[in-house]
Protein backbone atom coordinates (compact mmCIF):
# COMPACT_ATOMS: atom_id res chain seq x y z
CA UNK A 1 0.00 0.00 0.00
CA UNK A 2 2.60 2.52 1.04
CA UNK A 3 4.65 1.53 -1.98
CA UNK A 4 1.72 1.76 -4.31
CA UNK A 5 1.57 5.34 -3.03
CA UNK A 6 5.29 5.70 -3.75
CA UNK A 7 4.75 4.23 -7.21
CA UNK A 8 2.03 6.75 -7.86
CA UNK A 9 4.16 9.61 -6.50
CA UNK A 10 7.17 8.68 -8.62
CA UNK A 11 4.97 8.40 -11.73
CA UNK A 12 3.29 11.75 -11.04
CA UNK A 13 6.67 13.41 -10.48
CA UNK A 14 7.85 12.13 -13.86
CA UNK A 15 4.63 12.54 -15.87
CA UNK A 16 4.32 8.77 -16.31
CA UNK A 17 0.86 7.41 -17.01
CA UNK A 18 -0.25 4.96 -14.33
CA UNK A 19 -3.38 3.06 -13.48
CA UNK A 20 -2.36 1.59 -10.14
CA UNK A 21 -4.53 -1.47 -10.75
CA UNK A 22 -1.58 -2.88 -12.74
CA UNK A 23 -0.20 -3.79 -9.30
CA UNK A 24 -2.96 -6.37 -8.80
CA UNK A 25 -3.54 -7.21 -12.44
CA UNK A 26 -0.33 -7.43 -14.49
CA UNK A 27 -2.35 -7.86 -17.68
CA UNK A 28 -3.22 -4.16 -17.39
CA UNK A 29 -0.88 -1.69 -19.07
CA UNK A 30 0.97 1.27 -17.61
CA UNK A 31 3.52 3.86 -18.64
CA UNK A 32 6.40 2.58 -16.51
CA UNK A 33 9.20 1.63 -18.89
CA UNK A 34 9.53 -2.16 -19.37
CA UNK A 35 6.71 -2.75 -16.86
CA UNK A 36 5.83 -6.08 -18.45
CA UNK A 37 9.31 -7.54 -18.05
CA UNK A 38 9.59 -6.17 -14.51
CA UNK A 39 6.28 -7.69 -13.42
CA UNK A 40 6.98 -11.06 -15.04
CA UNK A 41 10.37 -11.20 -13.33
CA UNK A 42 8.86 -10.28 -9.95
CA UNK A 43 6.09 -12.85 -10.17
CA UNK A 44 8.40 -15.69 -11.18
CA UNK A 45 10.92 -14.79 -8.50
CA UNK A 46 8.24 -14.78 -5.79
CA UNK A 47 6.52 -17.94 -6.98
CA UNK A 48 9.86 -19.79 -7.11
CA UNK A 49 9.52 -21.35 -10.55
CA UNK A 50 13.21 -21.52 -11.45
CA UNK A 51 12.75 -22.37 -15.12
CA UNK A 52 10.26 -19.56 -15.67
CA UNK A 53 12.47 -17.25 -13.63
CA UNK A 54 15.48 -17.99 -15.82
CA UNK A 55 13.50 -16.96 -18.88
CA UNK A 56 12.07 -13.87 -17.18
CA UNK A 57 15.52 -12.83 -16.00
CA UNK A 58 16.94 -13.00 -19.52
CA UNK A 59 13.99 -11.05 -20.92
CA UNK A 60 14.52 -8.41 -18.27
CA UNK A 61 18.28 -8.36 -18.84
CA UNK A 62 17.68 -7.75 -22.53
CA UNK A 63 15.88 -4.47 -21.77
CA UNK A 64 17.52 -3.16 -18.56
CA UNK A 65 20.97 -4.83 -18.61
CA UNK A 66 22.88 -6.58 -15.81
CA UNK A 67 22.69 -3.61 -13.48
CA UNK A 68 18.92 -3.43 -13.87
CA UNK A 69 18.55 -7.14 -13.04
CA UNK A 70 20.69 -6.70 -9.92
CA UNK A 71 18.56 -3.78 -8.80
CA UNK A 72 15.31 -5.57 -9.59
CA UNK A 73 16.33 -8.59 -7.50
CA UNK A 74 17.43 -6.25 -4.71
CA UNK A 75 14.15 -4.33 -4.69
CA UNK A 76 12.04 -7.50 -4.53
CA UNK A 77 14.31 -8.81 -1.77
CA UNK A 78 13.99 -5.60 0.22
CA UNK A 79 10.21 -5.83 0.17
CA UNK A 80 10.28 -9.47 1.22
CA UNK A 81 12.09 -8.06 4.26
CA UNK A 82 9.90 -5.01 4.85
CA UNK A 83 6.62 -6.91 4.44
CA UNK A 84 7.61 -9.43 7.11
CA UNK A 85 8.90 -6.69 9.39
CA UNK A 86 5.79 -4.52 9.16
CA UNK A 87 3.28 -7.36 9.34
CA UNK A 88 4.89 -8.53 12.60
CA UNK A 89 5.31 -5.02 13.97
CA UNK A 90 1.61 -4.21 13.51
CA UNK A 91 2.31 -0.54 12.92
CA UNK A 92 -0.57 1.83 12.35
CA UNK A 93 0.23 4.58 9.88
CA UNK A 94 -1.55 7.30 11.83
CA UNK A 95 -4.44 7.11 14.28
CA UNK A 96 -6.76 6.17 11.44
CA UNK A 97 -6.40 5.28 7.79
CA UNK A 98 -6.35 8.54 5.86
CA UNK A 99 -8.95 8.97 3.09
CA UNK A 100 -6.36 8.90 0.31
CA UNK A 101 -4.96 5.56 1.47
CA UNK A 102 -8.48 4.20 1.92
CA UNK A 103 -9.28 5.07 -1.71
CA UNK A 104 -6.05 3.43 -2.84
CA UNK A 105 -6.86 0.33 -0.77
CA UNK A 106 -10.27 0.12 -2.47
CA UNK A 107 -8.62 0.43 -5.88
CA UNK A 108 -6.27 -2.42 -4.98
CA UNK A 109 -9.07 -4.55 -3.47
CA UNK A 110 -7.21 -4.55 -0.16
CA UNK A 111 -8.93 -4.72 3.20
CA UNK A 112 -7.23 -2.74 5.96
CA UNK A 113 -6.11 -4.88 8.91
CA UNK A 114 -8.59 -4.89 11.79
CA UNK A 115 -6.35 -2.74 13.98
CA UNK A 116 -6.46 0.09 11.43
CA UNK A 117 -10.22 0.38 11.21
Amino acid at each position, binding site marked *: *MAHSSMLRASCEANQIQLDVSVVIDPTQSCG*VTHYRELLTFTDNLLVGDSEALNGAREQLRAVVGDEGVIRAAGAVGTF*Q*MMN*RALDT*LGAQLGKELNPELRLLADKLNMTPPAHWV
Partner: protein
Amino acid sequence: MDDRQISTRQQIEAMVDNQWQRLARAGTWFSGQERVEIAKVAREAQSHDESGLYVLTEVATEAAKKIATEAHTIDQQWVEECGERGLALLPMVELTAIIAQLSAIDTYYVGVGVTPRNLPEPQPGEPSQEEVKGAKLMRGWLPTRGVAGAPNCFSGVAAEADALHEIHGALYLSMPEMMDMNITKGLHRSQIELLAARTSNYNDCFY
Protein backbone atom coordinates in the same frame (compact mmCIF):
# COMPACT_ATOMS: atom_id res chain seq x y z
CA MET B 1 30.02 -5.94 -17.46
CA ASP B 2 31.19 -2.38 -16.75
CA ASP B 3 32.90 -1.03 -13.62
CA ARG B 4 29.66 0.21 -12.08
CA GLN B 5 28.06 -3.23 -12.36
CA ILE B 6 31.05 -4.86 -10.70
CA SER B 7 30.89 -2.21 -8.03
CA THR B 8 27.20 -2.82 -7.33
CA ARG B 9 27.72 -6.57 -6.99
CA GLN B 10 30.80 -6.00 -4.82
CA GLN B 11 28.92 -3.60 -2.58
CA ILE B 12 26.14 -6.12 -2.12
CA GLU B 13 28.61 -8.95 -1.46
CA ALA B 14 30.34 -6.80 1.17
CA MET B 15 26.99 -6.14 2.82
CA VAL B 16 26.17 -9.88 2.84
CA ASP B 17 29.63 -10.70 4.26
CA ASN B 18 28.85 -8.32 7.08
CA GLN B 19 25.39 -9.75 7.69
CA TRP B 20 26.65 -13.36 7.63
CA GLN B 21 29.29 -12.55 10.25
CA ARG B 22 26.63 -10.83 12.36
CA LEU B 23 24.20 -13.73 11.95
CA ALA B 24 26.81 -16.16 13.30
CA ARG B 25 27.65 -14.10 16.39
CA ALA B 26 25.66 -13.74 19.60
CA GLY B 27 23.09 -10.99 19.17
CA THR B 28 21.17 -8.96 21.70
CA TRP B 29 18.73 -11.64 22.89
CA PHE B 30 19.88 -14.84 21.13
CA SER B 31 23.17 -16.75 20.99
CA GLY B 32 24.94 -17.33 17.68
CA GLN B 33 23.67 -20.90 17.65
CA GLU B 34 20.09 -19.74 18.17
CA ARG B 35 20.38 -17.02 15.52
CA VAL B 36 21.62 -19.44 12.88
CA GLU B 37 18.95 -21.90 13.95
CA ILE B 38 16.24 -19.26 13.47
CA ALA B 39 17.53 -18.70 9.94
CA LYS B 40 17.58 -22.45 9.30
CA VAL B 41 13.97 -22.86 10.49
CA ALA B 42 12.86 -19.97 8.26
CA ARG B 43 14.64 -21.33 5.19
CA GLU B 44 13.30 -24.83 5.69
CA ALA B 45 9.76 -23.55 6.21
CA GLN B 46 9.94 -21.53 3.00
CA SER B 47 11.22 -24.50 1.04
CA HIS B 48 8.70 -26.90 2.66
CA ASP B 49 11.62 -29.14 3.61
CA GLU B 50 11.62 -29.20 7.39
CA SER B 51 14.09 -31.39 9.28
CA GLY B 52 12.25 -30.84 12.57
CA LEU B 53 15.53 -31.08 14.48
CA TYR B 54 15.70 -27.70 16.15
CA VAL B 55 17.32 -26.53 19.39
CA LEU B 56 15.06 -23.48 19.66
CA THR B 57 12.11 -23.37 22.01
CA GLU B 58 8.83 -24.53 20.55
CA VAL B 59 7.37 -21.03 20.52
CA ALA B 60 10.43 -19.55 18.79
CA THR B 61 10.34 -22.31 16.17
CA GLU B 62 6.65 -21.75 15.51
CA ALA B 63 7.14 -17.99 15.33
CA ALA B 64 10.03 -18.32 12.89
CA LYS B 65 7.92 -20.50 10.58
CA LYS B 66 4.95 -18.15 10.69
CA ILE B 67 6.97 -15.00 10.03
CA ALA B 68 8.79 -16.72 7.18
CA THR B 69 5.74 -18.08 5.40
CA GLU B 70 2.55 -16.26 6.46
CA ALA B 71 3.45 -12.98 8.11
CA HIS B 72 0.29 -11.38 6.73
CA THR B 73 -1.80 -13.50 9.12
CA ILE B 74 -0.08 -12.18 12.24
CA ASP B 75 -2.18 -10.18 14.67
CA GLN B 76 -1.73 -8.63 18.08
CA GLN B 77 -3.26 -11.60 19.86
CA TRP B 78 -0.68 -13.94 18.32
CA VAL B 79 2.20 -11.65 19.35
CA GLU B 80 0.82 -11.51 22.90
CA GLU B 81 0.34 -15.28 23.04
CA CYS B 82 3.97 -15.75 21.98
CA GLY B 83 4.92 -13.50 24.89
CA GLU B 84 2.86 -15.56 27.32
CA ARG B 85 4.63 -18.70 26.06
CA GLY B 86 8.07 -17.21 26.72
CA LEU B 87 9.00 -15.28 23.58
CA ALA B 88 9.14 -11.75 24.96
CA LEU B 89 8.72 -8.68 22.78
CA LEU B 90 12.36 -7.64 22.39
CA PRO B 91 13.54 -11.16 21.46
CA MET B 92 10.60 -11.20 19.03
CA VAL B 93 12.06 -8.10 17.36
CA GLU B 94 15.41 -9.85 16.90
CA LEU B 95 13.81 -13.07 15.67
CA THR B 96 11.70 -11.14 13.14
CA ALA B 97 14.73 -9.20 11.99
CA ILE B 98 16.81 -12.34 11.37
CA ILE B 99 14.08 -13.88 9.22
CA ALA B 100 13.22 -10.69 7.35
CA GLN B 101 16.87 -9.90 6.57
CA LEU B 102 17.56 -13.46 5.44
CA SER B 103 14.53 -13.26 3.17
CA ALA B 104 15.90 -10.11 1.52
CA ILE B 105 19.33 -11.63 0.88
CA ASP B 106 18.10 -15.04 -0.28
CA THR B 107 15.57 -13.44 -2.64
CA TYR B 108 18.28 -11.22 -4.10
CA TYR B 109 20.52 -14.22 -4.84
CA VAL B 110 17.75 -16.27 -6.43
CA GLY B 111 16.75 -13.22 -8.46
CA VAL B 112 20.20 -12.80 -9.98
CA GLY B 113 20.51 -16.55 -10.58
CA VAL B 114 22.95 -17.41 -7.80
CA THR B 115 22.43 -20.14 -5.18
CA PRO B 116 21.96 -18.52 -1.75
CA ARG B 117 24.92 -18.87 0.61
CA ASN B 118 25.10 -21.69 3.11
CA LEU B 119 24.28 -20.49 6.61
CA PRO B 120 27.36 -19.58 8.66
CA GLU B 121 28.87 -21.63 11.48
CA PRO B 122 27.64 -20.22 14.81
CA GLN B 123 30.24 -18.41 16.90
CA PRO B 124 30.51 -18.62 20.70
CA GLY B 125 29.40 -15.78 22.94
CA GLU B 126 26.56 -14.56 25.09
CA PRO B 127 23.73 -12.21 24.04
CA SER B 128 24.37 -8.63 25.15
CA GLN B 129 20.80 -8.08 26.46
CA GLU B 130 21.39 -4.41 25.74
CA GLU B 131 18.12 -2.49 25.99
CA VAL B 132 17.44 0.53 23.82
CA LYS B 133 16.62 3.59 25.88
CA GLY B 134 13.18 4.94 25.04
CA ALA B 135 11.97 1.86 23.19
CA LYS B 136 8.35 1.15 24.04
CA LEU B 137 5.04 0.22 22.44
CA MET B 138 3.98 3.17 20.28
CA ARG B 139 1.15 2.31 17.87
CA GLY B 140 2.62 -1.09 17.17
CA TRP B 141 2.77 -4.54 18.74
CA LEU B 142 6.53 -4.50 19.24
CA PRO B 143 8.66 -1.86 20.99
CA THR B 144 10.11 0.92 18.85
CA ARG B 145 11.90 4.20 19.41
CA GLY B 146 9.25 6.66 18.30
CA VAL B 147 5.96 5.87 16.59
CA ALA B 148 6.12 2.46 14.90
CA GLY B 149 6.71 2.53 11.16
CA ALA B 150 8.94 1.28 8.37
CA PRO B 151 12.16 3.20 9.12
CA ASN B 152 12.22 2.25 12.80
CA CYS B 153 10.56 -1.16 12.68
CA PHE B 154 13.52 -2.89 14.40
CA SER B 155 14.55 0.06 16.56
CA GLY B 156 13.75 -1.89 19.73
CA VAL B 157 17.02 -3.78 19.08
CA ALA B 158 19.74 -1.39 17.97
CA ALA B 159 21.92 -3.88 16.08
CA GLU B 160 18.95 -5.09 14.03
CA ALA B 161 17.91 -1.54 13.17
CA ASP B 162 21.45 -0.87 11.89
CA ALA B 163 21.37 -4.07 9.83
CA LEU B 164 18.04 -3.19 8.27
CA HIS B 165 19.38 0.15 7.08
CA GLU B 166 22.51 -1.45 5.65
CA ILE B 167 20.48 -4.01 3.66
CA HIS B 168 17.86 -1.44 2.62
CA GLY B 169 20.55 0.88 1.26
CA ALA B 170 22.52 -1.82 -0.55
CA LEU B 171 19.60 -3.64 -2.18
CA TYR B 172 17.07 -0.83 -2.65
CA LEU B 173 17.55 2.79 -1.60
CA SER B 174 19.13 4.50 1.39
CA MET B 175 16.86 6.71 3.51
CA PRO B 176 18.15 9.94 1.86
CA GLU B 177 17.69 8.36 -1.59
CA MET B 178 14.06 7.59 -0.67
CA MET B 179 13.33 11.31 -0.92
CA ASP B 180 14.27 11.41 -4.61
CA MET B 181 11.29 10.46 -6.82
CA ASN B 182 13.44 10.72 -9.94
CA ILE B 183 16.46 8.68 -8.85
CA THR B 184 17.91 6.11 -11.23
CA LYS B 185 19.90 3.32 -9.60
CA GLY B 186 20.12 0.67 -12.28
CA LEU B 187 16.38 1.20 -12.66
CA HIS B 188 14.30 4.38 -12.56
CA ARG B 189 12.43 5.06 -9.31
CA SER B 190 9.07 4.32 -10.97
CA GLN B 191 10.38 0.89 -12.03
CA ILE B 192 11.74 0.19 -8.55
CA GLU B 193 8.42 1.14 -6.94
CA LEU B 194 6.49 -1.05 -9.37
CA LEU B 195 8.58 -4.02 -8.16
CA ALA B 196 8.01 -2.99 -4.54
CA ALA B 197 4.26 -2.62 -4.94
CA ARG B 198 3.90 -5.93 -6.76
CA THR B 199 5.93 -7.74 -4.10
CA SER B 200 3.80 -6.28 -1.30
CA ASN B 201 0.67 -7.28 -3.19
CA TYR B 202 1.97 -10.86 -3.62
CA ASN B 203 2.71 -11.03 0.11
CA ASP B 204 -0.75 -9.65 0.89
CA CYS B 205 0.93 -6.97 2.96
CA PHE B 206 -1.24 -3.94 3.54
CA TYR B 207 1.67 -1.62 4.32
